[in-house]
């Protein structure tokens, strides 16, 4: 059990992020949840690369054991890409707020339904006129 502790922490973070994404309607809150989910993936990659007694993978004559550098590389780039996609999501949220005046999912859906309901009868009328 104890040797799998890092996985359990990872799973907890991942699931917490998932919960925030599903359960919360606010778009910015969802994005924060998504980034928590993302950090859990960082942990998932980095943790197996650690070796007890190892040191950071910067070569020096006095050390023999190094932690695995490959996951570090992958996650390093993932973090920067993560912030870029987070910013893209935020930009989308800002645009949605400008158009709908809200960033709550429920309210956006309600507005969409209103618009649809308003458009449908008009469409039918037009068809009737055409006929």
């Amino acid at each position, binding site marked *: 059990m104890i*040797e*799998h502790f890092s996985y359990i922490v990872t*799973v*907890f*973070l*991942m*699931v*917490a992020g*998932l*919960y925030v994404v*599903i*359960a*919360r*309607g*606010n778009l*910015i*809150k969802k994005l*924060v*949840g998504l980034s928590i989910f993302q*950090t859990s993936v960082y*942990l998932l990659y*980095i943790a*197996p690369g*650690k*070796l007890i007694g*190892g*040191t*950071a*993978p*910067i*070569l*020096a004559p006095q050390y023999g054991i*190094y*932690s695995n*550098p*490959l*996951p*570090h*590389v992958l996650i*390093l*780039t*993932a*973090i*920067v*890409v*993560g*912030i*870029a*996609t*987070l*910013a*893209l999501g*935020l*930009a989308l949220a*800002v*645009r949605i*707020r*400008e158009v709908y005046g809200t960033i*709550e999912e*429920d309210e956006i859906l309600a507005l969409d339904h209103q618009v649809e309901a308003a458009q449908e009868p008009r469409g039918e009328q037009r068809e009737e006129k055409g006929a």
Partner: protein
Amino acid sequence: MALAVVVLARTRNLFAVVVLSGLYSFLMATVLLALDAVDVAMTEAAVGAGVSTVLLLGALHLCKSEEAKPAHRPWLPLALASVTALVLIYGAMGLPDFADPQAPIHQHVVPRYLQNEVDVPNVVTAVLASFRGYDTLGETTVVFTAGAGIIALLRRPGRRARVEEAPPCADLLLRLIGKLLIPFVLLFALYVQFHGDYGPGGGFQAGVIFASGIVFYALIFGVENARRVMPDRLVERMIAAGVLLYLGVGVAGLLLGGNFLDYFVLDPDPVHGQHRGIFWVEVGVLITVCGVMLKIFYMFASRGRGEERG
């Protein structure tokens, strides 16, 4: 850290959420440091705690900072999340033990990476820029694409953004400390960039640190002043120039008779060629990342709250 996450999930004031997520990022960076991932910890501290907090706050400024009460009960998502957790933990039991030197992850290509073929002591930099140069090119392109997407989303065509600038912070102490600190932040970014071969560091981290130096300046002295230092056109050029520089290194390898992104042919001495290739590739990454971060910040900062209803 788990506590921070739980509070975060329950808090409805988005301002508090953002500050908590910054705290969470710092904790995560500490954990990564404990796991020997110094490069990653540095990036996480700069990106997660620094830039993303500023961006989230910027987005909050444009939106409401209070979350509505959830309309439905959280039981269904909670149940779904718990079931997922159980399945994942059950799966994780089959994975290798923590810090097991016999785990497959330590067996495959890594021993070769650690042999230091390219004579760069920081193996992370060597793998990033040389062994897995294609990956990094892809990632840089993704960052570039995200920047382009944000420009497309938030730009108003034709009309020059009418910015009602808040008067720059008049607090003497802040200005003084800012003036003292910012040169060192920028210097540190350059150190991280050019010392990346020997210590933790590299283009991604340096780009973010450099951008955060400028963002710091903009926060204290006003965005318009920062624009005068780093004009929009320059920043936009930077985004493209970095990717082009990276591609250029690749093509230079091709022209000199090697493969795409083959650094061994860049210099008569193959090891020098590697150093040269890694250097220019990292510079390309620095320029793109820094440009994109700054551009994103400018885009958020230049959208005043008052004009969005137009």
